[in-house]
């Protein structure tokens, strides 16, 4: 049982990289949403959400990511995901969200790609 959940933000080559660690569920998804809403409000155009350290993701969390993706699209910006855990990739696949989000295997590829 790992109750640690963390969100860290940094800038890499002008791209905002949001690194999430732990379980994103109905209890922690609001924190992620707040972070992404703030970035949109600040006019950040390129966002990469790094889910490499995420061990669990539920529909609430996916909803937050889809919402942020749409806001970025409407504003002419981008939102990309970094996914390395097969488990998280599986959840994106069964929800057909791999065809919505650009998914990368590393932050370097996401920032460069």
């Amino acid at each position: 049982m790992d109750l640690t959940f963390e969100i860290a933000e940094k800038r890499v080559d002008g791209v905002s990289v949001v690194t999430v660690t732990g379980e994103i569920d109905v209890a922690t998804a609001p924190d992620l949403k707040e972070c992404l809403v703030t970035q949109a409000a600040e006019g950040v155009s390129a966002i990469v959400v790094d889910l490499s350290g995420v061990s669990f993701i539920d529909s609430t969390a996916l909803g937050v990511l889809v919402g942020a993706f749409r806001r970025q699209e409407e504003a002419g910006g981008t939102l990309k995901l970094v996914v390395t855990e097969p488990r998280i990739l599986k959840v994106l696949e069964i929800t057909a969200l791999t065809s919505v989000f650009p998914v990368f295997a590393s932050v370097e590829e996401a920032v460069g790609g």
Partner: protein
Amino acid sequence: MNGTVELTIPVRSDLLILARLTAAAMAGRAEFGIEDIEDLRLVVEELCLSVIGRNKTGAVHLHFTEDAGVITVGCSLWGEGDLDERGEDDPDDLSLRIIEALVDEYGEDMADGRRQAWIRKHRSKVAS
């Protein structure tokens, strides 16, 4: 009652983890593989979320049974629910896709006069 685990948790987001833990512990004891356990953890979360919907009060009641490598989880809402004004980020459709993809059977029925949603998952042949 024998062999059944029952769990009642208030409709308060930060305690749903208890439903996931119970599902994982039961599946672990029943020698489900890691992939099956992770599937079940997610499915039970989605089952609760779909039953809770926009309710922000009341309690979620779950019952878990395990028999010969088959785990059944039923979920219903207890108590009157005040509705939340959410609306944005409504992930019902996502919940359903996840449940459909990861369980062997799911459905709704009436239990003790209450609408209950349930899922059923078999242990995979080869523990993954």
